């Protein structure tokens, strides 16, 4: 009982700190991961007291174990769309956190085994990162970061609801069913990845091609999600302003370098106007880059046609944000 009381006392003291840490880490990842042109879902939770007690007790029955050994008192979960995003997130975490230990579950699986395959990191904040400098009191707190795809997340949640663990001795027929299901999730992840890759290289629909080119860049600067239907519709319209295909292809080929050359400017525009996104809705959609490109290189094409489809004031606003050279 004294063990339990000790855990209760320790947790009542540490839980608010872990909660603060969770908030800080979560906010940091949400804000900075967009620099890597991703917008994954990010969650955190500090463990429930009862869950801590039960876990310590269970582990104690197998080995020497105490409250201090527990690494997931705070858990951060990053859920991304595609398998290939996990490597990018790995790079991000290695860059910005002190990684104590990492487990790439996929790597530990034999070819003939199926299981939930996420990446787990035991991590601490890196005090050299500006955003963490004020959290010196939390520097020694270890927490767990789980990175998984949407499919892995779905599997994990469903498995949890079914109280399923592979090591449990299930009747072979049921076990086979579970394996078949698991393989579907893994296949789905692979298929989503290859479709994603194919779509990124898809060239038959200009609007779609452009949107795929722009979405990551948009996350980087706007740090929010956007409305895809509005984007595709707007891009369709403005591309139609061009009188020939050559100009459209030129735009598609040059938009990346246009954004790169103007990176600082775009960053500044977003930083200055983040609080008034609601006033400038175009700033919350990736097609803004296309409009800025056109204002720079084909101003008459966009200005002569704009009023047929949009409010004139909107284009004025977009032009004002971009400024001009005196």
């Amino acid at each position, binding site marked *: 009982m004294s063990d339990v009381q000790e855990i209760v006392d320790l947790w009542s003291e540490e839980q608010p700190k872990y909660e603060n840490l969770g908030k800080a880490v979560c906010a940091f990842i949400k804000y900075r991961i967009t620099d890597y042109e991703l917008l994954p879902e990010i969650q955190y939770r500090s463990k429930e007291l009862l869950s801590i007690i039960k876990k310590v007790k269970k582990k104690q029955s197998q080995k020497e174990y105490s409250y201090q050994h527990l690494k997931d008192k705070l858990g951060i979960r990053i859920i991304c769309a595609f398998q290939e995003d996990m490597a990018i997130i790995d790079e991000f975490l290695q860059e910005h956190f002190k990684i104590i230990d990492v487990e790439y579950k996929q790597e530990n699986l034999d070819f003939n085994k199926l299981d939930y395959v996420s990446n787990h990191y035991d991590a601490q904040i890196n005090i050299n990162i500006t955003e963490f400098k004020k959290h010196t009191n939390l520097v020694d707190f270890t927490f767990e970061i789980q990175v998984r795809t949407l499919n892995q997340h779905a599997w994990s949640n469903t498995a949890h609801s079914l109280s399923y663990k592979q090591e449990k001795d299930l009747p072979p027929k049921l076990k086979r069913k579970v394996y078949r299901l698991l393989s579907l999730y893994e296949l789905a992840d692979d298929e989503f990845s290859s479709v994603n890759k194919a779509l990124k290289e898809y060239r038959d629909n200009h609007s779609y091609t452009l949107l795929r080119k722009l979405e990551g860049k948009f996350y980087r600067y706007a740090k929010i999600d956007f409305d895809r239907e509005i984007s595709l519709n707007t891009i369709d319209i403005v591309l139609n302003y061009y009188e020939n295909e050559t100009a459209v292809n030129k735009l598609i080929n040059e938009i990346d370098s246009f954004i790169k050359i103007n990176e600082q400017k775009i960053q500044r525009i977003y930083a200055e*106007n983040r609080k008034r996104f609601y006033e400038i809705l175009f700033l919350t959609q990736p097609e803004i880059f296309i409009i800025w490109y056109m204002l720079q*290189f084909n*101003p*008459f*094409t966009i200005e002569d046609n704009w009023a047929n489809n949009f409010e004139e004031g909107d284009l004025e606003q977009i032009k004002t944000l971009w400024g*001009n050279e*005196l």
Partner: protein
Amino acid sequence: MATKLDTSTIVIERIIVHSIPRHKKGDFSIEPQYSEQESSLPDGLRVFFKDKIINSLQSNKELRVCYATDNLSPVSTYINQIINSNGKDFVEQSKLMTKYLFEIQDGQNASGILVVIFGKINSQKTCIIIKLERDEGAQLELDTKTKSFNIKDVKDLMLTRRTKIYKVGLFVDRAVFKIKYDGSTADLQIDPKTKKEVTTWFIEKFLGCIPLADPRGTTKKFYDLTTTFIQSIEEPIKKAKYTQDLNSYLQKNSHRISAREFADDYMETYEKDRYNLYLKEKNFRMSEFPKDNAFIDNKIKTITMLFSNDIAIVGKKGTFDKNVKLERQNDGNTKAEIISKVKSIR
């Protein structure tokens, strides 16, 4: 290398407002209402003023200017003092500007508000002057406690029709930017139909500035570049049309012209963009400049169309398109039809 002044980098650090009442020339029984200290500027209003400045300087009325050495206006001295002192003498110098404006205004000038801003452009110091003209009924109240005007009242005035559109001047230290001009101005009240004296009052008389380039040279450059661009068009009928259009444009009764206006008035959208890119490559700006045809007068009075069979048609301005009917033939040739009496043969 010269640094390009990018208006999107403007940062407003300090702002002060003074009020100039309408008065008859030489009547000094009334005085300007001076702020004794700068106005406080919440973020929302900072963005508002930045947007308004960019809006004006982005317009077709934007003009690069230099301080005229022989001009009587002391405003350039006050501007330089603000920039060089890093805004230290901001309040005092802005009051001196207001005093000068009050002295040179007469009964014809409407009541005005002078907004002086110290800030940054491209991270370097800048002084921005905004002059608003307002109706008599639109009053500004000086806060007796802070001895300054509430900047929100100025915004409200700018948003209502009681304040006429404004004039803006943005100035920098040209040495810092390695540029040949001192700033840019935009006089949004300029109307091609108004007289020259009125159009340049703010820029010349108050700010003491002249356009960066000699209008005769700028007009000639505009003519030469536009002509070269027109010559690059393959379609002869279109080429003839644009040539006539250019001549007409240069001879219309207007004191200010711009490549943008020419493109907008006469060209097709696709051609406009090509023209814009061409002028950009040649470092010629699309915005307005004062017109002076002195160097091109002879060139724009006639138009000559030379055919590959060495036959030429020479016409006077404004008469060519009425008297020569051009028609494109299927084989790529152009048919020209003139129905008139033969006057002489030389």
